[in-house]
């Protein structure tokens, strides 16, 4: 309990210190939700038949794509890149905690701040002003929560892998621009995979990115239900195992290299 309160206090102080930044971030999130809402609305009115879902499901998909970013976004790669660049990484490595788990713990902390300060308020705005709907039934809602947690873990590990690259590349700023747009695109944050042209859909369906946005939101709006939903969760779980193993391997390789560099 004591630990919890000290954590809560430091979180609160963090928010107060950066309140302007958080407020602006919130405004940006609302703007993005507003933008995508209108894109789908206009397209839907043009051709209602082409979507395979209702207008409300489609706009909910778009808005949730933007909102989910604040639920599953973690940024271990920036921390790792900074620590490696400045050399401060050795103090992290001396901690009596495995580096990979340490990064995960940090990211979970960040996620709670993001959800509390940005995610939930933005969702409330979306429910009131942008007509976002609740999941069709309780089961979909519960599966969505599970799937979203998987999405968080998948994205964390993808970012962790990117951060490990910083040991070799030193500056990951440029790579990360292209990386983010790949995640958004193949993850289906803006356009759901079922609207992709077949040859792109084949690629997107096989890669882990669709576990970040596409699967959780499709479950949320009731597009993926029953057995399909469980299959999708299985897909997330399998990729998660693969990415965890990859992260361990790549980080230990990077770690060795780092020690050599440090002399």
């Amino acid at each position, binding site marked *: 309990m004591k630990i919890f309160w000290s954590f809560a206090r430091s979180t609160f102080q963090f928010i107060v210190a950066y309140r302007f930044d958080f407020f602006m971030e919130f405004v940006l999130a609302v703007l993005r939700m507003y933008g995508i809402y209108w894109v789908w609305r206009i397209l839907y009115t043009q051709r209602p038949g082409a979507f395979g879902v209702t207008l409300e499901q489609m706009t909910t998909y778009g808005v949730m794509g933007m909102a989910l970013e604040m639920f599953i976004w973690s940024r271990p790669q920036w921390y790792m890149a900074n620590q490696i660049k400045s050399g401060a990484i050795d103090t992290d490595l001396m901690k009596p905690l495995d580096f990979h788990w340490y990064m995960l713990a940090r990211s979970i902390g960040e996620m709670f701040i993001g959800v509390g300060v940005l995610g939930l308020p933005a969702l409330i705005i979306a429910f009131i002003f942008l007509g976002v709907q609740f999941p069709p039934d309780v089961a979909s809602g519960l599966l969505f929560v599970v799937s979203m947690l998987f999405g968080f873990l998948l994205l964390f590990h993808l970012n962790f892998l990117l951060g490990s690259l910083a040991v070799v590349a030193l500056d990951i700023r440029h790579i990360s621009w292209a990386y983010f747009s790949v995640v958004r695109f193949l993850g289906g944050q*803006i356009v759901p995979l079922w609207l992709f042209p077949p040859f792109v859909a084949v690629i997107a369906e096989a890669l882990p990115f669709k576990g970040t946005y596409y699967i959780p939101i499709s479950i949320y709006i009731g597009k993926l239900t029953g057995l399909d939903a469980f299959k999708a969760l299985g897909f997330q779980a399998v990729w998660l195992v693969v990415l965890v193993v990859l992260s361990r391997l790549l980080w230990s390789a990077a770690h060795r290299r780092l020690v050599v560099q440090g002399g």
Partner: protein
Amino acid sequence: MESLRLYVRLVRLSMQARLQYRADFIMGLLNIIALNAINLGLIGIIVYRFVDLNGWIIWELFFLYCLWLLGHCLYSLFFWHFWELEEYIVQGTFDQFLLRPASPFIQFLGREVQYIGLADMSVAIVGLILAYTNLHLHWSLGQWLFFPVVVISGTLIETALVLMMACVAFWAGRSSMAINLVMEFNVLVQHYPIDIFGMWFRVVVTGLIPVAFMNYYPALMLLGKVDPQSPSAWLGYMSPVVAVILLLIASGVWHLALRRYSSAGG
């Protein structure tokens, strides 16, 4: 004239420093091209099934995107480091510009050129050429003459807006989020024609943060989409006027900010 010579010398110095990292330079270029390709791919997929977005077919949307990008790339080549103004202010290193007997603005400008803007430029030019041929456009001499004016106006509009936002750092210490806000409107305007959005959004990007003058209004005119009877037809020609007005305001804000500046060094 004197300040131009000074600017060129400063830029040459900073480029020499930058060229040490050649691999980073090439990675930057490739990544920017990839980023734009993915953005255009997304727009392509959105209209792939629906043929058009509120009457804008795919090549018109590409034209809109690339017209914005061409103005933007000149901004990012020369003025990108407005982002970093807050660092100079917070760390007190801004003082160096005030100590030397030359315009602080020119000195600050000369700190850097962000030449990955060249990648934006190549994407924009290729995209515009493709859009022009695929749309079978035949511009009149007047439209050809107006095109570079639109591009330069776009650059100046973005530059003036970002400079004003960067000046927030003189008062608040931080400015990156304020710049982000402008960029978010920018991105929306770059990707989608503003006629798909609701009324208040159109009012904001026309009157308050007038980024729609970077691409939307001039594109209506250049693509022949404007209805000459419409009461707002003249907006297509207003980009240079908007740019000049914004520059005047931005310059005022900058001078006000300089007077306000007290070093963090103490």
